[in-house]
């Protein structure tokens, strides 16, 4: 096991925080120059699920599920049925009659499971006699079944018929599941990861617990699929374990402490506070090669092939990061502080003089507070290959924690928040061009003005 103690903190720690927070108003790399506010929910919006290229569903504590068109911002359907908050939502695409259908599965605290048809807005099926509320859902497309996890693990077919059920006696219940090869499932239950096997004999499905992996010291907060060979789990105290998907052995172990050896007295004073900071791994995402972990309010990028840290930023946000996304060299994160930040992995320049980040001019100064206040020289490359995580833009709009975001590539980015709003962020230039095309099309139809 490799233990990592992150260091590289400099004397001007106070500045680092604000520098990380404030990118300034000039963000040439930020293409999201148009926003559309979507209103419809009456409570915290927690989940976003993409249905197809155009549509997505949002759900939250008001028990409503709304289906939206991302291009027009139009609310297509309001799905009513749940009486309490939604705890899990997923989309489920299957082939019927030669065409692909997408259904929406939602689980709520009122111990119901519903299957919706997003094309008509109808509730196709509803299961209301569950013994506990479902915390997570997993679709196994190749078996054409899906699983619900809570205090019990249930296997359902596409028509919401119960195929198999397994009750656990632990208090925690299943908080997350990932699919493993050969019909195995990894489920996170408190501090353990339980490997289940789905036995298919004819049309019958049986579930069997194969192994309990108890290497985490604390509650597992996130469990993700990396690639066919690996999956990862992160715990409340910052343990990150990479597992082998087939033989369930530990491939790598990182303990992210977010602390550093004190260099001078000034920062020692700070350290007392720093030790208290949250280091729970709330969220992870992966592109198959890299993992990004949201550790407290910091970001941590890990290369699973090299088994080494690539980049990190201890205070990427003012508050806990709730959701992350990794795409090539860019990264996006949203946080309880109400902002979405976009980052870029950049190769570190040669160690240079610590740049003065200057004054940060919010109000009342002529100060040009620009991205150069970002501290490129902050990181001392203790490890070869360490890159820096540079803030290239932020999206400010929500007045509450941004719970989640969903990317529609060039069509935009949807964020949902505690302030009950959804915002679609779009590329203004692209939208303008699309509108021009629409105008010319209408001109043609109308034969002139």
């Amino acid at each position, binding site marked *: 096991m490799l233990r990592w103690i992150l260091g590289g903190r400099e004397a001007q720690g106070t500045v680092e925080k604000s520098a990380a927070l404030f990118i300034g108003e000039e963000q040439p790399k930020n293409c999201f120059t148009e926003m*559309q506010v979507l209103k419809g929910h009456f409570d915290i919006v927690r989940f976003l699920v993409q249905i197809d290229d155009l549509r997505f569903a949002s759900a939250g504590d008001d028990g409503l599920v709304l289906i939206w068109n991302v291009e027009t911002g139009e609310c297509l359907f309001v799905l009513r049925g749940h009486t309490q908050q939604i705890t899990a939502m997923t989309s489920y695409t299957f082939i019927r009659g030669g065409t692909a259908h997408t259904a929406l599965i939602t689980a709520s605290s009122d111990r119901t499971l519903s299957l919706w048809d997003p094309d008509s807005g109808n509730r196709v099926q509803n299961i209301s006699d569950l013994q506990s509320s479902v915390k997570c859902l997993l679709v196994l497309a190749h078996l054409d079944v899906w699983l619900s996890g809570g205090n019990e693990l249930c296997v359902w077919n596409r028509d919401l018929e119960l195929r198999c059920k397994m009750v656990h006696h632990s208090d925690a219940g299943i908080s997350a599941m990932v699919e493993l090869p050969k019909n195995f499932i990894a489920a996170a239950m408190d501090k353990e990861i339980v490997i289940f096997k789905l036995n298919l004999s004819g049309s019958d499905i049986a579930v069997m617990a194969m192994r309990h992996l108890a290497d985490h010291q604390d509650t597992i907060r996130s469990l993700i699929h990396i690639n066919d060979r690996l999956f990862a789990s992160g715990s409340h105290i910052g343990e990150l374990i990479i597992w082998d998907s087939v033989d369930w052995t530990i491939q790598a172990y990182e303990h992210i402490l977010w602390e550093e050896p004190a260099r001078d007295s000034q920062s020692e004073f700070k350290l007392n506070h720093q030790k208290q900071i949250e280091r729970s791994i709330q969220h992870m995402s992966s592109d198959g090669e890299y993992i990004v972990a949201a550790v407290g309010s910091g970001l941590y990028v890990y290369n699973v092939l090299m088994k080494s840290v690539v980049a990190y930023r201890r205070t990427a946000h003012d508050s806990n990061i709730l959701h992350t996304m990794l795409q090539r060299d860019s990264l996006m994160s949203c946080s309880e502080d109400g902002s979405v930040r976009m980052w870029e992995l950049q190769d570190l320049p040669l160690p240079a003089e610590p740049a003065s980040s200057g004054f940060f001019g919010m109000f009342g100064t002529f100060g040009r507070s*620009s991205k150069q206040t970002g501290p490129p020289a902050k990181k001392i490359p203790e490890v070869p290959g360490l890159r820096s995580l540079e803030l290239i833009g932020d999206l400010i709009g929500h*007045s509450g924690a941004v719970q989640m975001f969903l990317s529609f590539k060039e069509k935009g980015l949807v964020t949902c928040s505690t302030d009950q709003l959804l915002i679609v962020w779009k590329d203004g230039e692209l939208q303008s061009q699309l509108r*021009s095309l629409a*105008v010319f099309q209408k001109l043609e139809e109308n034969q002139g003005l």
Partner: protein
Amino acid sequence: MIGSPDVVAFTKEDDFGDSFSDPFSLPEEFSVPLFAHAANANPWTKTSYAKFSKDFILISEFSEQVGPQPLLTIPNDPKVCGTFDLNYFSLRIMSVDYQASFVGHPPGSNYPRLNFVEDSKVVLGDSKEGAFAYVHHLTLYDLEARGFVRPFCMAYISADERKIMHQFQELSSEFSKASEFLKSGNRKAFANELEKKLKDLEYTRSVLHKEAELQKMNNGCYSTQAIEKANELANMEKSIYEHKDLLRQITSYPSRKKKDVHFVQRETEKLADTSVLDDTPNSNPSEIADKTVETENDIRKSSYTPQLIKGKSAKCFDKRLKTMEELCDASFFHQTLEQLNIIEKSFRGDLCFIYTSQIDRALVGKQKVTSFLFEAEREWENEVPLKNFSISSNNPTVPILNLTGEPLSLESYTSCIDIDHMKPGVESIEGPPESSLSDITQETSEAADTETKGSFSSDKSIEAFGGVSPSSLQANYFDGLERKSKVSIASPSESASSSVAVPQRMTDGNLVLMDAACCIGQEGFVFEEPLPELAQECCGDTVVNREPLSLLQGDPALQMDYILEESALAESPNMGLTFSELNTGVLSEEVAKINIEDVSDSTSFMSASTSSDRAVSPFTYGSALTLKQKKKAGHNALRFIRQYPFAQQAIFCLLSGRTLVILGVDEGTVRKLVNALLFFVPNLGKYGETVQPWLSSPFQLIDLQRWKLIGLQRAASPAGSSILHSLNRYSRYISILDCDSKTLRCPPYKGTLISRLADHRTQIKRGSTYFLHVQGMLTQLTARAFLYTFCHHIHLPMDINDQGSVTSRRTNFLLQLGYTVEESKIVQYLSELIKQHYMQGSSKGGNQSFCFNYTTSYLYKI
């Protein structure tokens, strides 16, 4: 001595104005006729002969009891009319023969017929009075009136002859609307009245029936009493049948207008044939009528108790005629008054002013794609028939014999008969205008007929037009009914019950009382002498000497509208009331020759719009923003740009769509600044929806999408701190003008466009002038934005993966137009608005997106 009425001279192209053709001049429809006065006189200081101070609208009636009488004027202010003799003028305008007023038995028919006639529209001049009038005749149905009709007329009276002539079409279409309101209301009321009458009749019949039975029982079948009763009963049956027929006619009123006279004629003939067939007694129509009336008047009907009707009606003079409001449904009547008020307002002022504003309106109407950006919404925007807009300076598109095919307002059928009547002597001089020679139909010949007969009402009157009446502009009460009978020929009044007398007060020797007890099948009255003499006689006796039965006095509700603004009064030039130039002796022929120039310079009035721009315009949220308010805002704007060196930056923010927040402690100061910057906000909205003049709670993100100019209260309270928080949080989307510390925080602006728009050292002194300057520049900017939006080659990708080149082409295009990067943002923002408006229409519904830029802001200080 009063001569025959003047005929307004209808000049041809050669006679009037000069027709130069400058290739660079405006197209003809947008040119304003030059002031035709040769001398170096100031056109606005001319005194006029008119005895009234400004234009007004007069409604008169030819009462069967008292003759012509004025009913009301709009504006309803005695000052307006001054010493102008309304009674006399009513006589003048009502003595024009109005063909439609005739109702009689059509040949070959036994039943009274209602005549659905077109209104007639004529121009009348009275040089002696200095008054010229557009006169719009119409008839309303009244069961108690002679021949069921009551002739009314609405007249727009002005001292400026040219105004009447040039604005004839506009006046005609506007008055037609008013007339339509009246007539639809009247048809409804008339149908109600008929319903009631039918009930009465049926009740009476049942009573009579019983009596007759009784008589038979007592005295045998052939007793005189029994025969009498039987006759009475038969009369009653006839009467019922006739009333039913009337009801059927009124309810089957054709709702479609016809444009083409010839077509109409044919149609009418055809319909007349079919209507003969329809005349065969069948109860269908009345049933239908019943149904409709039932639905409309359920309550009233059910509560109505039939009354016994006496065989003979009361003497004509004992009868109280219905007031105009009673004749129409009250709501329709008020609509009419509203419309008349609108007419009065829109035609107020000098002809030149009206022209300019009409041209302005027409031009704006052609720019629907962009006009929403900076143009003020017009009050009558939707009502003005822009398509028909045509002003031609040389060819006054006026009345006479404008019979056919003219695509004017649909029903602008005009008749020259009146003028022929009024001025027989003029004919030779005047002759029909060339343009309409080919179109002269039976109309003119009949006019001649009429004249020779010397009768006011001729039974050969224009049948062709009978069947065609304009549909009501309102949701037509009679819509959906069968329109079987479109009878054109008038019917006699029915039976003795509605016999009417001829006004006795008119017995100046011209009128002879006909059979007062019964007017069945007769014209109401006949002139013994030829008309011209009548006219002269009448004039000689000056007036109908009876005080008008004023509707106004009877009904306080009518006195409602229009109190003339003091300011407007004060500004209107003091009208001279002298007949200086025109010899009162000039009559008939000579009047016809009156040089337009002489008459045309009679003064009109400037509108009240020149009122002081000093006052801070009361910007009230929720009420429509008027041009006037915007002009007043010009003064504030002027002061703002002089006072604040960073005014340009502030204006740049507004034009580029970045929300400008004006932060301050004092509400007055903030509101004043909001007002000053008001007209720089693109797409301000009719009610200024995109501006929030005073906000004392923190704003939300969604507010930034909605409001582009916000006045915000700075307060020390907790609310104040949350306001500051929201300012801080959304600082990248807004610019903040702090009026307490006189600072502005916003992105920088480089360029010359706005420095021309808002020059710190501008020489412009007046707010309204500055407003016009800004308006001009914004129009130019809008034109560029239009160009940018609709240039194909810069927006369409050359191939599929061509996004980058589109972007660079767009940028280059704007640079080539000479715009800096910042100015390009303005054009791009306007272009986005244009696109959005074009795609979605004027409706602001839908969830719109909100565009912004990531640019650094600077703080500007004084």
